[in-house]
């Protein structure tokens, strides 16, 4: 004997000695092999009789009365005597006979029992059979070990299973088997229809049984090895018979289900809920429970294909009333507008708000379902994109409607209320539109977070869609609604207007009259919104141009940063404290925004604005220097009654042309003289003093100084006689100059002091004013309207009292001017309302009338021209940059490289690029290859 663990190399005893040692005792004493064979035949019958009766006993569950040792020895001896094959066959026959009997009994029961009970009966039959086969196999162990191994037959136990399959399940044309399959499918169907079935366990076990029933050519020699491998290779009864039928019936079921849903006209939401629930049940409670791993994916595939893939697009595209994707997303748009009506939504309840507006649940299910058929969810992305684009394109109209409604309400309710009137203008539209889109985008991102698991692909699709409609909606919308829609501006212009408006508001903001919008949005929020919005804009250079333009206007026009503040006449008191405070906040704000923009767009892109910003800073310094200068030279200047001056010195080249183009027109020290601007004498002294100061020190030798009365403002203090009250009036430079015409000119004969303007009571004709001030006609009419017609700032009385300013009108001071506050700001009437081309002016006092006239157009043209010019320069620069590093390049390569470099800012058109290349060839930066026309060389 060998040590344990080396059993493989076991020594087998010689046959003779085996026979002699055992047979010797019981059989005849002769040891010749021939006689043993004879004796064996007799002996076989005896032994088989014992064995067969024992087997029957086993099958009748009477195992415990049998002596194993004896039976084993019988079989052992028979095998040793080479009776193995006979024994094997006899055993086979005996088992077959038994099984056929059992089958009959089963069939008899089948007619009486329900499906579930039959499953149970069959299972107990199966376990009993397995049990008895185990005992039989134990008894015939030696047969297994020797005969079966040598002949490569089925082991007794496996033989039993095979026989079970052949003679019980499949006998008579698979009779019992078909019944089984029918019952199981029936039960599964019941469960799918929502019935609670009690047979789950049995189904699991029957399916296990089926899997044990090997199908691949029984009794073939390859069988044993397959059995050893656990049957993983061979086909079994389950795979051959059950699976195909099960899948087929499932398919029919799924089809019926989906058809039923669709034909019942149920809503898309209901379909999603039903299907998702069904799939969950099918997966968790049915398929995963009783299907083997091999079938599970097949069934799930089938289900996904039929229930989702075939239908989902149909469901997504369902119209509103049937609740498709458009329905689920519709709430987003609604949510945007409604949440705007409830001011200041905090972040937590905005999420809740979204849940109530949009059908987040459905969207989440949709995401889940689509993910089952395509992990990339292409379909969802495509549909979502389409929808977001179409929703986005509907936004301008909705915004307009909202604005119209609001202005209606306001118009009816309270005309004098100080809320910013939502008139039909570009500014309020821009604000509303951009706020709406920001809100919309925020909602979408919340939805992506809740429903789409922040799937980067889906988020990307939404972003692309938003970008798409932002950049395109304006143009397409224009074509559709040919009328004078507010959307004549591009997205970048609107954004610029948006920012301009808020910056102005924040700048203006004083604690007493902060408007409602300021409460809603903090500076950070506005900046963040703007930056987010900016990311969606394709042509960033367009935005820059507009932004530069607005920036310049803000700087030059707003009072807080007045370009030429002069405080004048009677009482030259100043209120600079208050002013400088606001001043610094506005500068900080501009700087803050600039730095944010630069972060976003790169430092090179805002060059123009940066230069303007530098001007602003140096102007501030200059103002301070000037003040210090006056102080230090107090004595020298005290007699000349200087006016306080706040300066804005702009480099003409860096500022928008529409503002600077006629700067020379007003310069009084110009050689021309005829166009010189007659500054009022009250100001003249100060101006010339400053000019002297400016020219000293040689720092400004190479520069010339021009005054632009077009910009800036001045503060006047006027004391009215009855009742005695002094108002501080802030008005534009032009208006101030006009007012100065009415300042007292003559001195009192007795006291030698200036006569009060109100006792002098000058009257001036329109023509006289025009002549005296030399203000351009257009501007003059505007200014006169502002101070003589506008109800809240009627400093002058006009005769006749019409709204229009005409030739021959007479103006004089309004003695009865009254205002609730001491400080009065005269708002300059916008160009349109003063223009004679529009005879009916609806809302003269309003500040937000559309700027659609010559000046505005001119400006727009200029901005457009700037953009084109800027692009040309940029393309040129990019071409040179590329060519310098590559030296030689193909036309197509050059173009693709150009587009790659420039796409962050704008998309250059091919024609434009070609023009630029030609231009550079002309300028001899490039030359064409002499052989290959499409090749360029860089000329150093």
């Amino acid at each position, binding site marked *: *004997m060998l*040590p*344990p*663990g*080396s059993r493989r190399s076991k*020594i*087998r*005893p010689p046959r003779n*000695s*085996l026979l002699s*040692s*055992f047979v010797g*005792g019981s059989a005849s004493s002769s040891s010749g092999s021939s006689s043993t064979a004879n004796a064996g035949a007799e002996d076989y019958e005896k032994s088989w009789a014992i064995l067969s009766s024992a087997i029957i006993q086993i099958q009748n569950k009477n*195992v*415990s*009365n*049998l*002596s*194993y*040792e004896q*039976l*084993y*020895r019988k079989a*052992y001896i028979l095998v040793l005597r080479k009776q193995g094959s006979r024994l094997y066959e006899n055993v086979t026959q005996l088992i077959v006979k038994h099984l056929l009997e059992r089958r009959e009994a089963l069939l008899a029961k089948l007619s009486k029992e329900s499906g579930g009970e039959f499953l149970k009966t069959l299972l107990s039959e199966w376990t009993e059979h397995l049990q008895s086969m*185990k*005992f039989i196999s*134990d*008894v015939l*162990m*030696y047969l297994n*070990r020797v005969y079966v191994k040598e002949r490569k037959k089925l082991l007794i136990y496996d033989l039993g299973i095979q026989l079970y399959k052949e003679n019980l399940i499949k006998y008579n044309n698979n009779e019992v088997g078909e019944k089984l399959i029918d019952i199981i499918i029936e039960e599964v169907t019941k469960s799918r229809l929502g019935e609670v079935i009690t047979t789950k366990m049995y189904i699991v076990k029957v399916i296990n049984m089926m899997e044990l029933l090997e199908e691949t050519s029984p009794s073939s020699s390859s069988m044993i090895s397959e059995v050893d491998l656990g049957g993983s290779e061979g086909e079994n009864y389950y795979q051959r018979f059950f699976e195909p039928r099960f899948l087929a019936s499932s398919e029919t079921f799924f089809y019926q289900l989906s058809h039923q849903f669709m034909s019942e006209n149920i809503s898309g939401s209901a379909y999603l809920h039903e299907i998702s629930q069904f799939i969950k049940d099918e997966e968790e409670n049915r398929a995963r429970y009783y299907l083997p791993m091999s079938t599970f994916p097949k069934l799930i595939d089938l289900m996904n294909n039929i229930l989702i893939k075939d239908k989902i697009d149909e469901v997504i595209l369902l119209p509103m009333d049937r609740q498709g994707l458009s329905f689920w997303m519709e709430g987003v748009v609604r949510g945007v507008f409604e949440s705007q009506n409830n001011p200041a939504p905090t972040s937590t309840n905005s999420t809740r708000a979204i849940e109530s507006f949009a059908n987040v649940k459905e969207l989440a299910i949709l995401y889940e379902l689509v993910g089952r058929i395509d992990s990339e969810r292409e379909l969802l992305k495509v549909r979502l994109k389409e929808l977001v684009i179409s929703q986005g394109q509907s936004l301008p109209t909705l915004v307009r409607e909202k604005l119209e409604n609001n202005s209606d309400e306001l118009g009816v309710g309270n005309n004098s209320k100080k809320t910013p009137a939502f008139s039909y203008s570009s500014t309020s539209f821009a604000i509303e539109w951009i706020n709406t889109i920001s809100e919309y985008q925020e909602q979408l991102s919340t939805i992506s977070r809740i429903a789409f698991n922040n799937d980067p692909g889906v988020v990307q699709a939404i972003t692309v869609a938003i970008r798409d409609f932002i950049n395109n909606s304006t143009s397409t919308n224009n074509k559709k609604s040919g009328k004078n829609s507010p959307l004549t501006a591009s997205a970048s212009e609107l954004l610029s207007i948006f920012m301009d408006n808020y910056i102005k508001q924040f700048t203006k903001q004083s604690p007493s009259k902060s408007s409602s919008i300021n409460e809603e949005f903090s500076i950070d929020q506005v900046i963040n919104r703007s930056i987010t919005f900016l990311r969606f804009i394709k042509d960033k250079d367009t935005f820059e141009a507009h932004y530069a333009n607005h920036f310049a206007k803000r700087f030059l026009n707003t009072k807080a940063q007045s370009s030429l503040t002069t405080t004048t006449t009677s009482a030259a008191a100043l209120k600079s404290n208050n002013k400088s405070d606001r001043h610094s906040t506005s500068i900080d704000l501009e700087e803050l925004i600039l730095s944010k923009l630069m972060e976003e767009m790169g430092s090179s892109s805002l060059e123009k604005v940066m230069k303007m910003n530098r001007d602003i800073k140096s102007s501030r310094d200059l103002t301070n220097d000037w003040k210090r200068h006056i102080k230090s030279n107090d004595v020298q200047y005290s007699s000349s009654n200087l006016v306080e001056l706040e300066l804005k010195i702009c480099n003409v080249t860096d500022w928008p042309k529409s503002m600077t183009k006629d700067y020379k027109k007003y310069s009084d020290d110009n050689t021309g003289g005829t166009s010189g601007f007659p500054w009022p004498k009250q100001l003249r002294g100060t101006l010339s003093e400053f000019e002297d100061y400016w020219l000293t020190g040689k720092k400004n030798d190479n520069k010339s100084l021009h005054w632009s009365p077009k910009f800036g403002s001045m503060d006047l203090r006027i004391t009215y006689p009855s009742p005695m009250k002094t108002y501080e009036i802030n008005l534009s430079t032009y208006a101030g100059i006009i007012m100065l015409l009415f300042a007292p000119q003559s001195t009192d004969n007795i006291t030698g002091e200036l006569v009060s303007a109100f006792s002098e009571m000058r009257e001036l004709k329109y023509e006289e004013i025009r002549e005296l001030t030399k203000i351009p006609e257009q501007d003059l009419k505007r200014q006169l309207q502002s101070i003589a017609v506008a109800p809240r700032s009627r400093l002058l009385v006009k005769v006749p009292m019409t709204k229009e300013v005409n030739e021959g009108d007479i103006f004089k001071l309004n003695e009865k001017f009254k205002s609730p506050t001491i400080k009065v700001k005269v708002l300059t009437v916008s160009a349109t309302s003063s223009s004679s081309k529009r005879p009916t002016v609806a809302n003269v006092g309003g500040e937000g009338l559309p700027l659609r006239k010559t000046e505005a157009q001119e400006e727009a043209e200029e901005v457009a021209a700037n953009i084109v010019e800027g692009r040309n320069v940029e393309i040129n620069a990019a071409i040179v940059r590329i060519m310098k590093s590559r030296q030689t390049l193909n036309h197509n390569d050059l173009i693709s490289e150009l587009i790659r470099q420039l796409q962050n800012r704008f998309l250059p058109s091919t024609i434009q690029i070609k023009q630029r290349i030609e231009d550079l060839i002309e300028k001899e930066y490039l030359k064409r290859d002499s052989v290959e026309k499409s090749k360029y060389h860089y000329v150093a």
Partner: protein
Amino acid sequence: MSNYVTLVSADNHKFIILKEVASISSMLRSTQGFEEGKTGKINLDMDGDILECIVDYLYYHFKYKDEAVTGNIPEFNIPTHLALELLVKADYLDI
């Protein structure tokens, strides 16, 4: 149920051994479902000295079954005169 099983030789020698040890022989293990499992007694057609040797071996096997990997196992000595007979019985018992 007892943890032990009695092996009875043809000449009525009795060996009471652990079931676990007896189970090394698949033949002895298989008896448990039958009458022998009930009585706890297995009659074997072999002489006492042979059976003794077999029981020794079973315990030896049981003791060292975990040592097979290390190879650190003492030799099992078989009386020469019983060798052939033992070989036959081992085959019978499927050891």
